[in-house]
């Protein structure tokens, strides 16, 4: 891919989707767009760009789609946030009435939509949480996405996916075509760079862990290992939230599904036994450390 082609794609993606690629993401573009080139019957990315410059709206749309499939949006999938509002927080309000604090970890916090959706959900519960100390820790592998998350700045496109307009008006400030989430909500979320393959015991113990759509990238042994360490990082009566296509079933018995709540899990108490089997760090950790 030539540098001008890369710049063209970068700018187009920024304009069309808010996707902000740094200067070194050629590999990402190639991995996503080479299959698309074949599908469109062109020889490669150069020819694809030519067609885009020629104004092919269909190809532009497909390129944007291919590049943004991993994007996250506010209240993504809705259901986990209903679990949070209707099940998790009400249970914790009872169970933590003594210490009046709740610790939440977004283990794949990405560009911030998930932790800020949780922060907005908590604000919307209002008086019930008055006097409570709530911590939301957002971690991600990428420092770059964490910076975006910290800034709390989103494109017009991003704030229109999943975010009810009332919440946009209530919690965001407009700056031209960009929208920034309020300082109060930004202040509710702490950011840390973290690789889930590495030890995360220093983060402490959590009441709620959101770990959605990240374990799908790991092999089975790694998943089992991470589940074991997540269970150790969680209170015995805490809650684990996984992505819609993810489960612990068949992998580990340290968590058990919460009845009738899709994607919601609780520690089973069987943590010690399962952890022994996964004590050795898996192969992928070595690769990631190279």
């Amino acid at each position, binding site marked *: 891919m030539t540098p001008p082609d890369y710049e063209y794609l970068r700018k187009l993606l920024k304009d069309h989707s808010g996707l902000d690629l740094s200067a070194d993401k050629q590999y990402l573009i190639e991995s996503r767009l080479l299959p698309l080139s074949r599908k469109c019957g062109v020889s490669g990315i150069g020819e694809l760009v030519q067609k885009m410059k020629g104004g092919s709206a269909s190809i532009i*749309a497909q390129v944007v789609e291919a590049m943004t499939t991993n994007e996250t*949006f506010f209240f993504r999938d809705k259901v986990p946030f209903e679990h949070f509002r209707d099940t998790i927080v009400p249970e914790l309000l009872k169970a933590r009435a003594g210490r009046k604090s709740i610790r939440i970890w977004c283990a794949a916090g990405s560009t911030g939509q998930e932790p800020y959706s949780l922060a907005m959900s908590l604000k919307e519960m209002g008086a019930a949480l008055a006097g409570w100390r709530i911590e939301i820790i957002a971690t991600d592998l990428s420092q770059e996405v964490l910076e975006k998350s910290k800034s709390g700045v989103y494109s*017009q*496109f991003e704030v*229109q996916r*999943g975010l*009810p*307009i*009332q919440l946009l*008006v209530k919690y965001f400030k407009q700056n031209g075509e960009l929208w920034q989430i309020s300082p109060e909500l930004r202040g509710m979320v702490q950011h840390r760079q973290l690789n889930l393959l590495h030890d995360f015991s220093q983060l402490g113990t959590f009441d709620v862990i959101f770990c959605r759509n990240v374990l799908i990238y790991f092999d089975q042994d790694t998943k089992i290992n991470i589940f074991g360490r997540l269970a150790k990082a969680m209170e015995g009566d805490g809650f684990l939230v996984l992505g819609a296509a993810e489960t612990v079933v068949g992998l580990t018995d340290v968590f058990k599904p919460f009845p009738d709540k899709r994607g919601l899990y609780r520690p089973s108490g069987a943590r010690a036994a399962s952890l022994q089997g996964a004590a050795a760090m898996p192969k992928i950790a070595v690769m990631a450390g190279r």
Partner: protein
Amino acid sequence: MKTCLVVDDSSIVRKIARRILEELDFQITEAEDGEQALEACKSAMPTAVLLDWNMPVMDGYEFLGHLRRLPGGDAPKVVFCTTENGMDHISRALHAGANEYIMKPFDKDIVAAKFQEVGLVALPE
């Protein structure tokens, strides 16, 4: 059958919106301005209205005020769809009884997301 009245003075925007909303299982009627839209609502109240702001004859904001005072006029879910992208406009629209607000330019995902917000399109499983 869910019905949606698409109100926009641009025939191109109406055509794009129609195509997207038909895919979301809406039956579509169209109006070119607020006055036409009001007449359409008087003869048959739609399930939803996709509403431009700036239009000749009667703008979308004025239409919304009239609609909400009609018998049964509180029922339709009204989704603004406009280049008026400022917070002041959004606040005014919500105050006047709009249910959702799309800032142009829009695409299929945004329309689907906004109609999910107002409860007229099911969430994908």
